[in-house]
C-alpha cells in the first residue's frame, strides 16, 4: 500500500500534536526548573553544548559534542588527570618494551562498567578491532594507523582480516598492543575516545540501535548517562561504579537545552538557566557590562591561507607566496577582523600548546619572521614581475565561506592584497559544502582553511602537507618535506622528532611558503562564579568537568 507505514504514523502524529496543544491550554504551574542556587547545593552543572551529539558510539564519534559526552561517560586505558597529564585510566599499569614497540596494559581489578560488570582486556580488544573493521567503516579508523598498531593499515584496506590486528587480550586483565614503529605519543593516544572500550554483548544485542539511546549507552567512566531526550536535553550523573569515584565531586552534568543560537543561550545564562555558555563578539560587550565572568581559551584550531600551487596556477610561483606571507600582519588581523579575546597570532603551523620534549614544541622550536611588511612584499612582487616579464600581477580570487565572519575576513584580505599585489582580487563566497568541494577539486587561488588537532602531537598538523594527504588542498609537494615527516613518523625519540619537525615546518612556512599561518583560534565563554576545576582541552573532551565542583556549596547565594 502506498504510504502504508507513514499514514499510520500520520494519525498518531496529528493526535499527539493536538494533545500537546491542549497541554498548553491547560497550562499548569508545577514547574521544576532547577535554579542555580539549587545546583550549587547539589553539585550539579547545567550547560549548553549547542547540538545533539551525532554519534555516541565511541568507535564512531568524530565531533566535539559527542566527545564531550563520551569523555565523561567512558574511560580509555590511559586518561588525563586534573592538570591534563596523561595517567593510567582503566589500566592500572603499562609496561613498554625496550624496542618501544610493545605496550602491555594491566586492566585495573576494580574497573567496572556502569552496570556493574568488570572491565576486561577483551572489551578493549573488541573495540580496537571494531575501529579498524572495514565493514564497520569508522571515520576514525585512520587513528589506528597513526598509532601504528600492527596490521591496522592492511586491515582497513581489506588486505588482512580483522583478527590479525596487533592488539590482543592475552587474558581478562592483560592487553598487549604491538606497533609497527615506536610512537612517541602512544600513551596519549590511548586516552583518546576512539580507543575507549566497547562491550561486545551490548553491541551485538542492539545492532544498529547501539548507542542511540540511554539503555544502550553503558560506559565505564566517572559519569553515567541517565536521560537523553532527542534534540532537547541530556543528563549524566556520577557513577558509583567508577574506580576513582572518590575524586569526582559533581553529582550531575546536564544539558537542559540544545541551543545552536549563541544569543538564546546567552539569555539563558543571564537568567541562571545555564552555568556555562559560549560567547560571540556581539554578546561579549554586554557580558562585560553586566560583569559576568568572561574566560577565554585556545580551542586548538589553527587557521591559515592555503594557496593553490598546482602547475599552471598563479601561486605556483614561490615569490608570490612569500609576498603573501610577508604582507599579512597577524596582530592587525586579530584586532581588526576577529576581535575575539584569546585569539593568538600563528607564525608556524604547530600551535603553542603542543608538547615537545620537556617544554612545549614551540618553545623548543621557535619560528619567527617579520610580518606586516608591505614594502618587503612589494619588493618580492617586483622581482616576480621582472622574472616573468609582466607589467601587472594577473587577477586572482579568494575562496571563502558565506557566514558573516567569513565575509569580514575575506573582505579584509581582499583590500590588503589588492594594495600589495596591485591587481584585482575577487571573493568567491560560497556555502560550506561547496567550499569543501572546490577545495578538493583545486578550484581556487587562495582559500582560508583551518585545522583542529586529532591528538596531542605536532604530527596531527605536520602530516597534512605531505604530497599524498587528502587535506593538502593546495597541492604542495616537496620530497624533502615528505622525507622529514616520514622519518618523524618512524622515530620514537621526541628530541629527534622536534628537530625534524622544526626543519620541516621552516621549509613549509618560510622557504616554500606553501601555507600562510594566521591565527591560533581563541574563544570566549561565560562561567558561573564559584564553578571551579573546569578544564578546557584542545584534544579529547572539552569542556572537561570530571574534576569540577562548586565552591562554598552550602552557602546559598
Amino acid at each position: 500500500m502506498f504510504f502504508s507505514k507513514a499514514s499510520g504514523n500520520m494519525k498518531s502524529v496529528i493526535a499527539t500534536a493536538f494533545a500537546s496543544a491542549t497541554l498548553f491550554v491547560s497550562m499548569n504551574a508545577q514547574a521544576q526548573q532547577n535554579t542555580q542556587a539549587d545546583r550549587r547545593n547539589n553539585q550539579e552543572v547545567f550547560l549548553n553544548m549547542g547540538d545533539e551529539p551525532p554519534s555516541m558510539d565511541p568507535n564512531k564519534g568524530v565531533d566535539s559534542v559527542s566527545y564531550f559526552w563520551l569523555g565523561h561517560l567512558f574511560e580509555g586505558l590511559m586518561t588525563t588527570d586534573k592538570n591534563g597529564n596523561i595517567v593510567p585510566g582503566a589500566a592500572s599499569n603499562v609496561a613498554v618494551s625496550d624496542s618501544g614497540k610493545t605496550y602491555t596494559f594491566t586492566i585495573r581489578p576494580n574497573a567496572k562498567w556502569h552496570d556493574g560488570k568488570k572491565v576486561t582486556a577483551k572489551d578493549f580488544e573488541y573495540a580496537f578491532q571494531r575501529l579498524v573493521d572495514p565493514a564497520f567503516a569508522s571515520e576514525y579508523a585512520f587513528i589506528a594507523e597513526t598509532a601504528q598498531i600492527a596490521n591496522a593499515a592492511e586491515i582497513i584496506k581489506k588486505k588482512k582480516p580483522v583478527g590479525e590486528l596487533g592488539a590482543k587480550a592475552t587474558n581478562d586483565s592483560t592487553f598487549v598492543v604491538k606497533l609497527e614503529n615506536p610512537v612517541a605519543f602512544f600513551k596519549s593516544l590511548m586516552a583518546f575516545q576512539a580507543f575507549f572500550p566497547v562491550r561486545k554483548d551490548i553491541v551485538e544485542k542492539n545492532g544498529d540501535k547501539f548507542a542511540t539511546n540511554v539503555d544502550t549507552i553503558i560506559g565505564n567512566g566517572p559519569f553515567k548517562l541517565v536521560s537523553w531526550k532527542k534534540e532537547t536535553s541530556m543528563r549524566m550523573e556520577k557513577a558509583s561504579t567508577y574506580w576513582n569515584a572518590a575524586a569526582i565531586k559533581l553529582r550531575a552534568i546536564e544539558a537542559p537545552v540544545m541551543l545552536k543560537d549563541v544569543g538564546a543561550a546567552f539569555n539563558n545564562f543571564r537568567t541562571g538557566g545555564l552555568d556555562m555558555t559560549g560567547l560571540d563578539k556581539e554578546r561579549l560587550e554586554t557580558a562585560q557590562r553586566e560583569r559576568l565572568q568572561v574566560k577565554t581559551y585556545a580551542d586548538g584550531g589553527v587557521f591559515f591561507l592555503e594557496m593553490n600551487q598546482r602547475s599552471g596556477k598563479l601561486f605556483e610561483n614561490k615569490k608570490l607566496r612569500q609576498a603573501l606571507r610577508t604582507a599579512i600582519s597577524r596582530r592587525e588581523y586579530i584586532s581588526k577582523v576577529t576581535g575575539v579575546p584569546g585569539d593568538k597570532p600563528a607564525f608556524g603551523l604547530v600551535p603553542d600548546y603542543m608538547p615537545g620534549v620537556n617544554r612545549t614544541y614551540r618553545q623548543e622550536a621557535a619560528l619567527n619572521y617579520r610580518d606586516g611588511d608591505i614594502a618587503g612584499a612589494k619588493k618580492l612582487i617586483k622581482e616576480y614581475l621582472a622574472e616573468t616579464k609582466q607589467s601587472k600581477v594577473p587577477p586572482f580570487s579568494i575562496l571563502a565561506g558565506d557566514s558573516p565572519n567569513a565575509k569580514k575576513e575575506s573582505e579584509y584580505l581582499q583590500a590588503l592584497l589588492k594594495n600589495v599585489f596591485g591587481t584585482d582580487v575577487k571573493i568567491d563566497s560560497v556555502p560550506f559544502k561547496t567550499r569543501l568541494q572546490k577545495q578538493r577539486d583545486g578550484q581556487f587561488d587562495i582559500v582560508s582553511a583551518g585545522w583542529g588537532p586529532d591528538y596531542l602531537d605536532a604530527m596531527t598538523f605536520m602530516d597534512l602537507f605531505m604530497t599524498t594527504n587528502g587535506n593538502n588542498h593546495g597541492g604542495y609537494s616537496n620530497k624533502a618535506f615528505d622525507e622529514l615527516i616520514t622519518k618523524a613518523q618512524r622515530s620514537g625519540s621526541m628530541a629527534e622528532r622536534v628537530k625534524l619537525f622544526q626543519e620541516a615546518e621552516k621549509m613549509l612556512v618560510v622557504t616554500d611558503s606553501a601555507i600562510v599561518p594566521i591565527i591560533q583560534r581563541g574563544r570566549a565563554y561565560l562561567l558561573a562564579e564559584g564553578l571551579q576545576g573546569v578544564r578546557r582541552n584542545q584534544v579529547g573532551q572539552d569542556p572537561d568537568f570530571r574534576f569540577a565542583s562548586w565552591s562554598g556549596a552550602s552557602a546559598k547565594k
Partner: protein
Amino acid sequence: MRLLRFILQRLFLAVITLLTLFTLTFFLMRAVPGDPLMRTKEIPEETRRNLEQRYGLDKPLHQQYFLQLSRIFIHGDFGTSFRTVGREVNDIIREQFPVSAGVGIVSVLIGVTTGIALGIIAALYRNSVIDRFAMFLCVAGISLPSFLFAFIFQYSLAVYPLTQLGFNPDTWLRPAGWGEPRDFIMPSITLSLGIIASITRMLKSQMIEVGFSEYVKTAKAKGVSLARLVVMHQIRNAILPIISIIFPILVFTMSGSLIIEGVFGIPGLGRAYMTSIQNSDYNVIMGLTVFFGGFLIIMNLITDILYGVIDPRIRVG
C-alpha cells in the same frame, strides 16, 4: 458518488506529484556540490570507500534511485540519517513533527482569534487608537524578521523580569528551552504575529467592503439594530474569505519554523530540516521533503472538501 470520484482523482494526482517531488529532490540533491561524507577534514580514501559501501553510495545512480524509491513508496521506510548515527528518519518525523505541529496549532489559534478581533475593531472604529495600533502591527508583523521579535520577547518577557524585577525562575518563563507547557508561550506569540498581521488586514478590508454592499444598506434601511447588522450581516460575510486562508496558514505554520525553533531550542522538524540540508544528509532531506509534500497534499484535499461544506456554491458532489 461525485465526491468519491473527486477524492480518488485527487489521490491519484497526489501519487504523481509525490513521485515527481521525489525524483526532482533526488537529482537536485546530488547536483548540489558536496555529499554526506564530505567533512571539513577529508575522510581517508579507503575509509571513504568502506563508508560508501556501507551506505550504498557506491552503487550506480539509477540503482540508488530505484532502491530509495521502493523503500519509501512501497515499504514506507525513509531510511537512516547519515549524520546522526542510527537515527531513523521515520523516528525523526514521529518525534519531531508533533512538536512543530503543536507550536503551529497554538500559534494559529492565538493568531486567528486575535486577528479576527483586531480586524473587526479596526474596521468598526476606523482611525481610532486601536485601528492605528492594529495597522502598525500589520506592517511590523509582515515586514520585520521573526528572529527580531523572538529576541525582543526573550529579553522583555524573560531576561528583564528575571534579572531586573526578581521574578521567580521556578514559575516564570525561561528565555529558551523545551519540555514544559510554559515553553510554548514565547514561540507561539512570536509565530502568531505574522498570522495576526495578515488576518487583521484582510478582515478589515473585507468588513469595509461588505459595509458598502447593497444588502447591508438594505438591512440598515429596514432598521436592523447595529449589533445585529454587524454580527449577522457584516462579519458573517466578511469572514468567509478568512476561512479560506486559515488552512494554508495552518499547514505552513505546522511544518515548523527553522528560525523560531533555533532561537527557542525547540526540537521540531524545521530544525531537523535545516541540519539535514547543511550536512547534505540525503535520507533526511528526502524523507522530510516527501513527508511535507504528502502532508500538504492531504491538507489541501481536506480544505477543498471543507470549502464545499462552508460555501455551497463551490460544492463538488
